[in-house]
């Protein structure tokens, strides 16, 4: 059993890995190595890391397009992630999904979702499976506060509440759905009221301290595992970057951002570690190791083979596509 301090050091390592992975992804995007949309998790790291620590092998996790953080927290290698971003065959989805569609079967990661709300009922179905089979696995389903307005969210929660499924819904409330602050799109400010409507437990707290996230998510996960039904958790957080790389985030003030950055989860954890007696050296070591891992991941991704046309055609259906497409593609 790791001591409290060792566990916290590992949390710090995981959060730092996410931070540095995202920064390198942003750089690769600017260099044109990554295309399309790239949603960074910077500022929200404590949630993925704290929540992932509350799980055990076999548990199932669903996330939105902002999916790099949780994938890494669950144990996926930075190399697989970076390769996926660059559309390489060695990526976690063989280069077919890109940033928004990470998958990692080995670590129970059931995917990032490009369609807001599309995963909520699917996650409930996964939890139904656990109840039906009695496998005692728990499902975590993440989404933003914006997603709590779409029909798919309500249908998923409705069924999960009705069937008392072993699932924990985690709303990462980073205050903005793209450019719109929540107060302009929601009649209520306490989103756990929505959980009440579906007869499920609600919890609500700040997500800047990884230990708090871990404890509170663990409580909900344990309840679910014991068959005591689903929980909806609203966690207050903040994204330090725009919604995606193409969003300059002009809808919020610099002062607001600076204020929020005072609650940087990495800084908070670092302070806690130092208070608990961790040395600068301990922290430096971790940072150096992570740095090397991320650099190696970028290099490996750079060097990897591009996604294969064969995978593209053969992964559409279990039944292989007819030849007409391939012939055309071959021209």
């Amino acid at each position, binding site marked *: 059993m790791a001591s409290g301090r060792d566990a916290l050091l590992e949390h710090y390592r995981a959060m730092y890995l996410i931070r540095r992975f995202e920064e390198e992804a942003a750089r690769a995007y600017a260099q044109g190595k990554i295309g399309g949309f790239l949603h960074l998790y910077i500022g929200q790291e404590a949630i993925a890391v704290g929540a992932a620590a509350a799980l055990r092998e076999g548990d199932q996790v669903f996330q939105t397009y902002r999916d790099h953080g949780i994938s890494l927290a669950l144990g996926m290698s930075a190399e697989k992630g970076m390769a996926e971003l660059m559309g390489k065959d060695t990526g976690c989805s063989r*280069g077919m999904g890109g940033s928004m569609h990470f998958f990692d079967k080995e670590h129970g990661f059931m995917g990032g979702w490009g369609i807001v709300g599309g995963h909520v009922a699917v996650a409930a179905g996964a939890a139904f499976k656990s109840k039906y089979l009695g496998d005692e696995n728990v499902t975590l389903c993440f989404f933003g506060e914006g997603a709590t307005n779409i029909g798919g969210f309500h249908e998923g929660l409705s069924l999960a509440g009705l069937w008392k499924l072993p699932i924990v819904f985690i709303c990462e409330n980073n205050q903005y759905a793209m450019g719109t602050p929540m107060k302009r799109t929601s009649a209520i400010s306490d989103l756990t009221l929505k959980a009440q409507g579906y007869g499920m437990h609600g919890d609500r707290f700040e997500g800047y301290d990884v230990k708090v996230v871990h404890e509170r998510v663990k409580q909900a996960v344990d309840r679910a595992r014991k068959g005591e039904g689903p929980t909806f958790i609203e966690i207050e957080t903040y994204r330090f970057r725009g919604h995606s790389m193409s969003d300059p985030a002009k809808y919020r003030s610099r002062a607001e951002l600076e204020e929020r950055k005072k609650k940087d989860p990495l800084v908070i954890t670092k302070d806690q570690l130092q208070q608990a007696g961790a040395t600068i050296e301990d922290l430096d070591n971790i940072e150096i190791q992570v740095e090397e891992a991320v650099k190696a991941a970028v290099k490996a991704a750079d060097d990897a083979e591009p996604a294969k046309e064969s995978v593209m055609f053969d992964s559409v259906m279990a039944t292989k596509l007819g030849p007409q497409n391939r012939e055309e593609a071959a*021209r």
Partner: protein
Amino acid sequence: MPQMNLVQAVNSALRTEMRNDEDVIVLGEDVGKVGGVFRVTQGLFDEFGDDRVIDTPLAEGGIIGTAIGMALYGLRPVPEIQFSDFIFPAFDQIVSEAAKFRYRSGGEYTVPMVIRTPVGGGIRGGHYHSQSPESLFIHTAGLKVVCPSNPYDAKGLLLSAIRDDDPVLFFEPKRVYRAVKMDVPEDEYTIPIGKAKVVREGEDVTVVGWGAMLFEALASADEVAEEGVSAEVIDLRTLWPVDIDTIVESVKKTGRLVIVHEAPKACGFGAELLSLVTEKAFVHLEAPPVRVTGWDTPFPYTLEMEYLPLQHRITPALLETAKYIP
């Protein structure tokens, strides 16, 4: 005359009609203060206020459902779906409600709503920011479907669409948004819905396209001209109701037809066009009609430029069709 890109032209059409008609309302995700993710509605919030330019919650079904309700009473809502890939949570409202309201009320009620939505690939957006779902709506009786290829047509067609009494799906080719600038009048003008345009005359082969692919078809027409093949290029502009006469007339002249679209081939709109031409001009065909389309796969994140029916795929199709000997 001002030069506008497609973003500015659509913006100009919205502004024009909002000034003309207080019943016109714009709603959607981030369309207000931010001015839309592609900035198409920029400035409208400041000019018309938040009761006419509405930032909605993230809820496509709600956006389209409420727009239908408004339209039933004569308001002219112009909801935006941020990407046409996100239209599916609203698919039920469009297919079950908007499309059938007039029919099931015996013509009593109409739904004069225009759903604006960016369509198509070319920005490396992957599966859910690139698709071309037009044929799903053409297949649904009761909807009009428009897809301009350039700024001038976009403004004129959007003004017609807003004034039209039927629900209109207005697809804006996002690859063209900022790629083309041309003269677009500041004043109002309309382009009729249901009229295609021959944008380049030719003798040997007819090529039909719309949206972003029109430019690819034109580039291929230039390319094959160097090999002595004269291609006639038709910009469909309105997909439904389709101006089949313009296509048929052209095919009667050339005897050969190539259709280009980004959507997958299976049940893409090209299939319908081809059937109509075969029904109406069978004896004039001198070569098997050809479709150059997206593959029958989800829209890929990688290999996007191979998936899209770009010039490098259209040109050989034109040459082969033009030179085909039975």
